[in-house]
């Protein structure tokens, strides 16, 4: 056995940095979850902090916490309802373009927003929605309305989140579907044409069934992310005016933990959401085994 291990000494040496990095940045923080049950202050050692039982979970009785859970689910469900079908629709549309050059152009342009940070996207929103000469408010005033302070409005927050994430990711998410469409046998379309099937009938009876496996995989993979709504996007959009609808679990952990120093409580919130997402992933995997015949791992 040890002779065999020695034979692979180079391979072990190559793997070692990865193993050490995971230990430092993943496994030790997992052990740090005990902060959720201790009274920890920064600067002291985790292991010396006194145990406090379930004291850090007192937030479960605060109505404010449940508002945040509600906000999180509201945003993630909305994003899913719009964000899941949109790339399928767009991929079907792009596929119907007969001019190869235009098709390539549309693909290139629609992938582009994926490469910009959410910060840049929020700047774009600001530039269009600002009260000082923003394009949208100019149109609103021209139509006879009062300028709207979109960025600081509780009603407009969710539409902004959904539409900006559609703008940023829809094109990018068509890549998988477009690749799946190219694997469909062209003879099927020829046969359908001979039978006199129109474009819509071809989409319904050939293209959609052809990409169904991809659709179901994407659907399954999106389930675990229901609990995380993308702090990268929410945090830059949030301000004191829209916080009551914008505050989600991730921003709550960030604020109470890193900014206000309630380490125990923030760790407890994080632990709950980690457990929920673990349950979602495991359920999803079982679901995938049942539907696709194979799990995710």
């Amino acid at each position, binding site marked *: 056995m040890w002779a065999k291990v020695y034979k692979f000494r180079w391979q072990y040496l190559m793997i070692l940095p990865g193993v050490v990095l*995971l230990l430092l940045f993943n496994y030790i*923080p997992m*052990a740090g979850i005990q902060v959720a049950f201790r009274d920890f202050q920064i600067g002291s050692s985790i292991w010396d902090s006194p145990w406090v039982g379930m004291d850090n979970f007192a937030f479960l009785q605060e109505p404010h916490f449940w508002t945040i859970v509600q906000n999180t689910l509201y945003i993630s469900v909305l994003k899913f309802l719009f964000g899941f079908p949109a790339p399928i629709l767009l991929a079907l549309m792009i596929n119907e373009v007969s001019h190869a050059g235009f098709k390539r152009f549309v693909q290139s*342009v629609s992938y582009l927003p994926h490469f910009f940070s959410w*910060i840049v996207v929020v*700047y774009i929103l600001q530039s269009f929605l600002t009260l000082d000469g923003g394009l949208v408010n100019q149109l609103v005033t021209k139509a006879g309305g009062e300028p709207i302070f979109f960025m600081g409005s509780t009603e407009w927050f969710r539409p902004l989140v959904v539409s900006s994430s559609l703008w940023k990711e829809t094109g990018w998410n068509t890549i998988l579907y477009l690749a799946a469409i190219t694997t469909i046998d062209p003879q099927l379309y020829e046969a359908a044409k001979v039978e006199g099937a129109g474009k819509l009938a071809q989409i319904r009876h050939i293209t959609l069934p052809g990409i169904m496996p991809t659709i179901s995989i994407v659907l399954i993979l999106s389930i675990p992310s229901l609990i995380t709504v993308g702090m*990268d996007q929410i945090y*830059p959009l949030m301000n004191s005016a829209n916080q009551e609808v914008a505050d989600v679990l991730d921003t709550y952990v960030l604020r109470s933990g890193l900014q206000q120093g309630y380490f125990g409580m923030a760790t407890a919130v994080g632990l709950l959401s980690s457990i929920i997402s673990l349950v979602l992933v495991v359920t999803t995997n079982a679901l995938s085994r049942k539907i696709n015949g194979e799990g995710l791992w």
Partner: protein
Amino acid sequence: MKQTVLEKTSNWLLILLLSLLCLSVLYPFAYMLAISLNEGADAAKGGVYLWPRAFTLINYEIVLGNSVIRHAYLITIARTIVGTIGGLLVTLLVAYGLSYKGLPFRGGILTYILITMLFNGGLVPFYIQLNNLGLLNTFWVFIFPGLFSVWNMFVMLKFMQGIPEALIESAELDGAGPVRVLWQIVVPLSKPMLAALGLFTAVGHWNDWFAGAFYVSRQSLIPVQTFLQQLLTAQDISVVLGSNTNQEALARGSQMQNITLMSIKMAVVMVSALPILCVYPFLQKYFVKGVLVGSVKG
């Protein structure tokens, strides 16, 4: 084949819809460019849509004359280069080591790696660990935590399993050790995949604002995206005007009273977005391939 009238109109409708979609992606950049090239006070009156009305370069002179922004750029470039090269190297070595099927404890190591994809300690314990390691408020907090990407490792592993074993065996018969096999056979064959993953890693570093906002507090360490994030909520332009080395432009700007927070913001965001807009057309062929390698389950 003859097209019916219905098909023809629906074809045109399709082209129209997709053109509008492209416009919705491209127009914001044209709009922001126009605002950034316009005198601020004038732009605030409205009416600047595509072309600057009162053309000026003052916004860019102020932004590029700001030593904080210039320094933030250096940080971003440094972390993108170091983080991408280091990250690809570490991840490649792990994937290559694990591509040997006969490796003792291989299954155990794979499980050890996989678990980190399913469960994590959360933000606060991670932060405490960064503090314990002394990484907070250093440049290395941008590099070390992301050096080993589990996701990229699995993509690479999957790719390497597609390399014909006969190729590697014949090299080994010629007396090549694992290191030589890696550099002379595996790496040359993996170039498109490495390019795609390198691109994703680099974009991730370029766009990350979070680490700069929460893991460092020294202003001399913040990257461009964090500067943008701070400026997003700024109430006045002192953030940009302070520590400005281009005093001459500053004097002219304040004299004419034509710079506003918005026009400065647009110039900053254009300066951060332009590099991506410029390299994007050349990199396109790589990333589509990368997404597809990653998506095919092993």
